[in-house]
């Protein structure tokens, strides 16, 4: 039995007793040999299964598909590298060009301001829609109706031309005297018009996202908060919204990513965000493709950062909704390194590694490893 040495492709249901470290002077904390090798196998119908090798199932289709995709991927990459018309040197030259960085800053500023307006107003609209006042409900409904109906580009131009409709804006008592007055163009410049256009239309969409999140919170939570006498505003802020965030966050990040790219529409106002800057530069030097690539790379970077942020925000709001939080990428990397080191050095694993990962440290992985009965640690 012990002469059957495990080969690459073979797995053994149970490690043969002779393969176990015989000396007890070995690492005491290596949780080795929790299997009872001395116990005679239960009488199976056709005899002794435990000494048989396990061969993994063959997956020829998977291999063919993998190979095909790998070839296509290699072709795409090689064309990116070998085709000189991509002009990667020009891309590199312009990637951190001062005016490009300014444009990037413009995009970020615009996104942040529009997202703040959009989600701030959106939350208010959602709460209005769910309030018991018919007027508040109708106003919220009407707002969403109007701002979802009118195309964004039209709204942007409209806001930019607000000075034509109302040359001055003033603060005062409704239907009464004016207290303060300013020129519309001084208040709503290109940036202002862009933030208004993007933010107000975003609010219409965010309102629905927030409302969906609130509706998704179990009715019992609202009832319990009411039964305890918690004040209404506090019910929303402390009990309902934090739980609604679990469904609000994924869609909201979607929306914010859309907003990042949506800011490129603002080039119609000639506001110096990333896309407008790029078009201005390639209009002058005719290097259209490399400059578009510069913009694409920066949009990719922003989206990446947002996606990473999304993971951590979601994880934060998952507290209490799941029993164990999913591991962060940092934790996964740390555990993998610790496991690899344990396999190389034969040292025991630190106890902080959850069992689902610790299984990877096994020298042989068979289906018994999934039952958790197998030993864990460098039992070489």
């Amino acid at each position: 039995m012990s002469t059957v040495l495990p080969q690459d492709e073979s797995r053994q249901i149970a490690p043969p007793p002779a393969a176990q470290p015989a000396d007890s002077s070995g690492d005491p904390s290596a949780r080795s040999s929790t299997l009872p090798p001395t116990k005679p196998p239960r009488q199976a119908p056709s005899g002794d299964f435990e000494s048989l090798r396990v061969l993994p199932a063959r997956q020829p289709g998977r291999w063919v598909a993998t190979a095909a995709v790998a070839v296509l991927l290699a072709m795409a990459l090689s064309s990116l590298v070998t085709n000189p018309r991509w002009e990667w040197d020009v891309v590199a030259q312009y990637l951190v060009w001062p005016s490009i960085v300014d444009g990037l800053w413009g995009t970020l500023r615009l996104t942040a301001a529009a997202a703040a307006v959009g989600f701030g107003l959106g939350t208010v609209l959602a709460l209005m829609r769910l309030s018991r006042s018919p007027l508040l409900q109708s106003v919220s409904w009407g707002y969403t109706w109007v701002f979802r109906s009118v195309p964004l580009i039209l709204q942007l131009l409209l806001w930019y031309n607000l000075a034509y409709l109302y040359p001055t804006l003033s603060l005062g008592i409704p239907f009464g005297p004016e207290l303060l007055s300013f020129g519309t163009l001084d208040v709503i410049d290109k940036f202002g018009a862009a933030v208004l256009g993007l933010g107000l239309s975003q609010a219409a969409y965010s309102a629905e996202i927030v409302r969906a999140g609130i509706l998704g919170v179990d009715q019992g939570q609202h009832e319990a908060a009411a039964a305890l006498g918690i004040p209404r505003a506090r019910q929303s802020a402390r009990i309902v919204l934090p739980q609604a965030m679990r469904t609000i966050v994924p869609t909201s990040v979607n929306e914010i990513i859309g907003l990042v790219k949506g800011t490129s529409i603002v080039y119609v106002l000639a506001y110096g965000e990333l896309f407008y800057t790029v078009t201005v530069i390639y209009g002058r030097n005719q290097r259209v493709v490399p400059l578009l690539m510069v913009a694409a790379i920066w949009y990719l970077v922003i989206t990446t950062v947002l996606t990473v942020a999304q993971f951590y925000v979601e994880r934060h709001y998952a507290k209490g909704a799941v029993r164990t939080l999913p591991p962060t990428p940092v934790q996964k990397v740390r555990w993998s390194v610790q496991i690899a080191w344990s396999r190389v050095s034969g040292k025991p694993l630190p106890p902080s590694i959850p069992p689902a990962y610790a299984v990877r440290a096994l020298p042989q992985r068979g289906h018994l490893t999934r039952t958790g009965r197998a030993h864990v640690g460098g039992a070489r």
Partner: protein
Amino acid sequence: MTVVETTTQASGAPTQGHLAVHGVHKSYGTLEVLRGIDLEVRPGEVTVILGPSGSGKSTLLRVINHLEKVDRGFVALDGELIGYARRRTPTGEVLRELKEKEILVQRTSIGFVFQNFNLFGHLTVLENIVEAPVSAQKRRRSEVEAQARELLERVGLADKADARPRQLSGGQQQRVAIARALATRPRLLLFDEPTSALDPELVGDVLDVIKDLARTGTTMIVVTHEVGFARELADTVVFMDDGRIVEQGPPSQVLDAPREDRTRTFLQKVL
């Protein structure tokens, strides 16, 4: 002992928690769920409501703390109307509906324990208990936290203060929910089928906590299917069917010698 100090006078005779329900009617659409309920609960008494599902038991509890508005009739706790205020106007006395804010204040004197616990999943056990006393009653957080830990000890969960509800068993969650309901120092406690969502082996722990409360003189109304619990602890057993109170009285009468046929057939099925 620590909790019921406010509801029990030093002499031992509780003076708070007197509930009066008079002529309460309640309909959902065309369905009349409560058809004229009269009920009196004296301070320190335990009232158990039995009855088949759909008989209006839960609705009655929800009407008492004004989670549902009544169509007719009134509910008063210690002489104070729930949901309305008496006002003198030039044309005579009227009942003015209270604002939601005022109703929320009234609810802090009525504790409610739900069938499905309804603990706030994103908050820890301690935060669940501390929330209402701090935000609704404006009490000092440090004082409330100390009280919350005492309550947790009392329900046997002192070590779970920092756990989140989903990490607890159903029985443990319900005991936390009881501690949460007690934290506002209510004059009346309402239990809506507190053990129906629990595994049979977990029911005992929760019932023990409720029994302990009953013995210390907390006024409570318990909707339950646990007839044994009713027999052991109730001062009054109320049997409801079809939106009406069919029969009420001490357990020895209602459970052992029911006067009404309807009560008898129900008890035969349950026992």
